[in-house]
């Protein structure tokens, strides 16, 4: 028995999916920058970008073009290879997360079932964690290669922050994994389609995960690594032109994909709420169902993106000691507590509520 049949049909199918997902997340990241500025403006009673095209819709293009036309400076005493590698890794790891996220159930075309997921890896969530930890390298290498002590300090701050919060995040996930009994994201979504969404079973876990996601993506209130108005720019202070653009852009791609992960884990992924899926599929067919699911998934992600921006323009930044206190003294014990309670309840449940 072949576990995986590789033929031309599958190859083209995956290639199309990969192109769609990568370009899709890039376009969404592009328009997140626009949305961020619009949201900031609206929250601050301003109008935001409205000059480039109708409603300023071409603004991200103009920003990107500007970054491309800027002079590209590679500092004389930097190590050139690492200096270029840094932003590349940051961008690469950001995009790679999209590989295991199920964007919808499946299409049925040319007598083939095409699952809307690039790779249904059975260790999906572990893969995400691996990639997210790799993201630290992008920042660290960038800061180190700049050969500038302030960049290095910024990189250290960012790296230690990300590592600290990854811990609480991982432990929260253990509780979730105990509950679902699987590492595959697709199976998790399937479970949530049949039963309750995980948010109702793990509210505390979701809260911790959300806070950690904010810290992982370097967003306010945890954006001390690149605090625009306090530091010169943290780890990317030596960067210019599109290499700087890649770092800034990677943040938005990260934001988009971590929203996608959160929706998948806690909010039912592409599950359509309040609708009986089986009767609905009979009514509109598999393909339209997949489109509709993708749309719903996308809407959920957009809500999270708005939350990210809303929080950014509301909450002031933490001090560094407060950040570390929160990570190690509050979130980590809380996550451990959550794990213990979940474990105890699962044990009791399996024992039919007898001690």
């Amino acid at each position: 028995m072949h576990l995986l049949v590789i033929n031309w049909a599958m190859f083209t199918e995956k290639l199309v999916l990969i192109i769609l997902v990568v370009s899709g997340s890039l376009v969404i990241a592009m328009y997140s920058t626009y949305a961020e500025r619009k949201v900031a403006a609206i929250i601050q009673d301003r109008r935001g970008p409205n000059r480039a095209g109708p409603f300023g819709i071409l603004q991200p293009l103009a920003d990107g073009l500007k970054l491309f036309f800027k002079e590209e400076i590679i500092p004389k005493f930097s190590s050139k290879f690492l200096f270029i590698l840094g932003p590349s890794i940051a961008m690469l790891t950001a995009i790679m997360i999209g590989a295991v996220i199920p964007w919808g159930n499946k299409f049925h075309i040319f007598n083939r079932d095409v699952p809307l997921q690039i790779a249904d890896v059975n260790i999906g969530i572990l893969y995400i964690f691996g990639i997210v930890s790799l993201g630290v390298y992008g920042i660290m290498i960038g800061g180190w290669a700049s050969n500038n002590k302030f960049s290095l300090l910024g990189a250290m701050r960012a790296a230690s922050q990300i590592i600290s919060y990854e811990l609480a995040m991982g432990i929260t996930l253990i509780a979730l994994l105990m509950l679902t009994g699987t590492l595959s994201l697709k199976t998790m979504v399937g479970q949530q389609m049949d039963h309750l969404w995980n948010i109702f079973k793990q509210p505390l876990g979701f809260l911790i995960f959300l806070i950690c996601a904010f810290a992982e993506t370097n967003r306010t209130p945890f954006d001390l690594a690149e605090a625009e108005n306090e530091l010169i720019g943290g780890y990317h202070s030596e960067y210019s032109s599109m290499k700087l653009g890649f770092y800034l852009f990677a943040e938005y791609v990260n934001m988009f994909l971590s929203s996608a992960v959160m929706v998948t884990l806690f909010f039912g992924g592409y599950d359509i709420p309040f609708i009986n899926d089986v009767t609905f599929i009979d009514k509109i067919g598999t393909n339209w169902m997949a489109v509709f699911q993708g749309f719903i998934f996308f809407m959920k992600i957009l809500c999270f993106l708005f939350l990210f921006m809303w929080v950014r323009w509301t909450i002031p930044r933490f001090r560094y000691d407060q950040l570390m206190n929160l990570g190690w003294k509050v979130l980590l014990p809380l996550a451990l507590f959550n794990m213990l309670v979940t474990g105890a309840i699962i044990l009791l449940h399996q024992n039919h509520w007898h001690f």
Partner: protein
Amino acid sequence: MQALTNKIKPVSRKKMTFWERIYLPEILKGMFITFKHIFRKKVTINYPEQTRPFSPVFRGLQILNRDEEGRERCTACGLCAVACPAEAITMEAAERQPGEEHLYREEKYAAKYEINMLRCIFCGYCEEACPKDAVYLSETFAPSNYQRRGFIYGKKDLLIPNPKEDPEGYAKALGDRKQHPQGHGNEH
């Protein structure tokens, strides 16, 4: 110390309550406040399309006035230049030749009249000093320019459009600002 205004708020150093130390409810409160701002009226004025209304006493760019027949009123007496605290005004006088009566109101006129808008402080003393009703401050301000010499306004920049040749431009230059009810005391 006696406070000058009643806006002073003493800093409170009291210990935070448990509710405040959880931090999340306070965050939610803050987020609710920012959310309310989404529905507020925007304060921005879209500048080139919309402009802020000027106050009735706004002092903008100078304008050289003409009389009803379109003749220049300025006689190059130099009182405005003397009154100018920033020394922004220079002029050269010339004598009106026979046959130029339709151009200049009196026998003497300003052949050259320049205001350096980089020096001008828009105090309006020139308007007050003028005995011939020739200089007024309008409702516009000097547009930006790439060169310093672009800010030295000559007669062709300052003169109001001729009411006979270009009545529309003249009406536009007069604007819809109401004249001062009492005038400023220097008329004729």
